[in-house]
């Protein structure tokens, strides 16, 4: 049976709904030995500030039950080096390329977009307004609806490409933030970024991360991610990309059922570097088994 796995986000058509999540996939090329890029929907490359960025001191990672807390702090090469050394190679891959955009100020987000707008081979920008590891106490723009709206608006005006706003789960009312992003002109929403978390060494009574707090990812967060994806997908008109703890096609399909049009796979890439490709393949198997001709038949079909 032929299964059509393609999805149309309106601003971007994907071969299948599976993208590699920013921050877990390097700049993409690190995964070339392990997988075929033409078997996945696309990649979201690691967050870029305008210049190179130091990141946080180690330890930056701690494993917890069913999850991983990271406090990398968005260490990265900056737009110039990315455009010169990485992007030409990404252009040769047969997959959608989304670039995750960071900024220490509104102006920096705009500068990054203006710079990347002059480069070819990027399909969309994912606005990283939700990293919990760069400001004190996990502060980020996506914690406030007004800040989110204003920043999305500026980002949208700064460039020619679609803007996906990546939201934080560390909020009281995720729907309010999602609507603010939509109001600001976002073409899509991706969620969730990591949950602000910590771990303690009982021997030394010190935090296990130098940054004290970090962002929790992995299978432990999936139920929360799914609940938030459901809430947001039913509240906004723009397409929603769901993520959080996806390890298998069944996990990914749960996100589609609650209304996500596509998904991102993150932490799983560390353990199984071919996760994205494997999950897309397993999705096809699922559809064949269930007699589903188009994957889009599953989207938003939760029975409540």
């Amino acid at each position, binding site marked *: 049976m032929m299964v059509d796995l393609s999805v149309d986000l309106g601003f971007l058509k994907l071969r299948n709904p599976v993208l590699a999540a920013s921050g877990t996939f390097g700049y993409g090329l*690190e995964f070339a*030995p392990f997988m075929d890029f033409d078997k996945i929907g696309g990649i979201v490359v690691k967050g870029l500030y305008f210049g190179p960025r130091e990141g946080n001191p180690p330890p930056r990672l701690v494993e917890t039950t069913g999850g991983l807390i990271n406090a990398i702090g968005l260490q990265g090469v900056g737009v110039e080096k990315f455009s010169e050394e990485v992007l030409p190679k990404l252009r040769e891959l047969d997959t959608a390329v989304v670039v995750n955009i960071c900024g220490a100020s509104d102006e920096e987000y705009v500068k990054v977009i203006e710079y990347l707008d002059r480069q070819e081979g990027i399909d969309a920008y994912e606005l990283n307004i939700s990293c919990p590891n760069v400001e004190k106490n996990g502060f980020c723009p996506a914690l406030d609806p007004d800040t989110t709206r204003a920043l999305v608006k500026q980002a949208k005006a700064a460039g020619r490409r679609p803007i996906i706003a990546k939201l934080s789960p560390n909020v009281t009312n995720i729907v309010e933030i999602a609507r603010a992003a939509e109001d600001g002109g976002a073409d899509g929403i991706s969620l969730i970024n990591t949950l602000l978390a910590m771990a303690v060494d009982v021997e030394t009574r010190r935090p296990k991360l130098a940054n004290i707090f970090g962002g929790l990812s992995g299978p*432990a967060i999936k139920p929360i991610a799914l609940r938030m994806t459901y809430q947001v997908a039913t509240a906004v008109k723009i397409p929603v990309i769901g993520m959080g703890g996806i390890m298998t096609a069944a996990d990914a399909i749960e996100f589609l059922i609650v209304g996500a049009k596509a998904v991102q796979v993150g932490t799983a890439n*560390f353990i199984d570097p071919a996760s994205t490709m494997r999950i897309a393949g397993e999705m096809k198997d699922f559809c064949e088994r269930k007699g589903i001709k188009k994957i889009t038949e599953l989207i938003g079909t939760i029975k409540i």
Partner: protein
Amino acid sequence: MQWDSRAKIIFKQDWDDYHLFRIETPKIAAEARPGQFLMVRVSDTPYPLLRRPISIHSREKNSLEIFFQVAGQGTALLSRKKEGETLDIIGPLGKEFIPDWEHLGIAYLIGGGRGIAPLYFLGKELKKLGAEVHVLYGGKTLADLPVKEKFKKAGLGMTCSTDDGSFGFHGFVTDLLENEIRKTTPQILFICGPDAMMNKAAELAAAHKIPARISLESMMGCGFGACWGCVKRIKKSDNGKWRKICEDGPVFWAEEIIWEEAE
């Protein structure tokens, strides 16, 4: 770099906390160099989630050996694998121990506890290159020196030390090194062990102006450069920015490492 999801354990040896597996993995074995490591999957369930970085202990034709100590839940699970079972491994990863020198001369290999693991492969390769190899192997007590006979069988000269005096020299392996440096002049040191031991050995190397290669241990998210989780501050390169242990290391020159921040 290769990914072998079905590398068969063809031999296993256990000591209390230490374990040795011989794994059939022809492609990874063909590429492996001393100092490199494998990322080993320890569980099919979500906990422990991550692969564990484990250094390559030895190479025999189509197989590799890993020698490791149980340090937490991941390595405990790994230690329970049996002969005939398969492992999911990625490797070889990281930079190798041996510098690109014409002549290596007298080489001292200093291993503390499980830090001895990569030095067996290294010692055998150095010998092939014509180096005069001396191994100093230190542990808290005799039980921490399970692979000492193996070095001797391979014709690698070895002196042991224990902190409690239960075997060999009574004291730290770095004291042993200090004694050796007084007697002879090594051209190069290769060091792997606990941070405090490596720090002390690096100080001795610096004081005697002996080049030293140091293999660092770190928790890792991926092992192949994508997560940026295993960094250490390294001098002279990239203006002192955090560098990845998995990709830029795990082996560095001693003078590149900033120990104050490594605690």
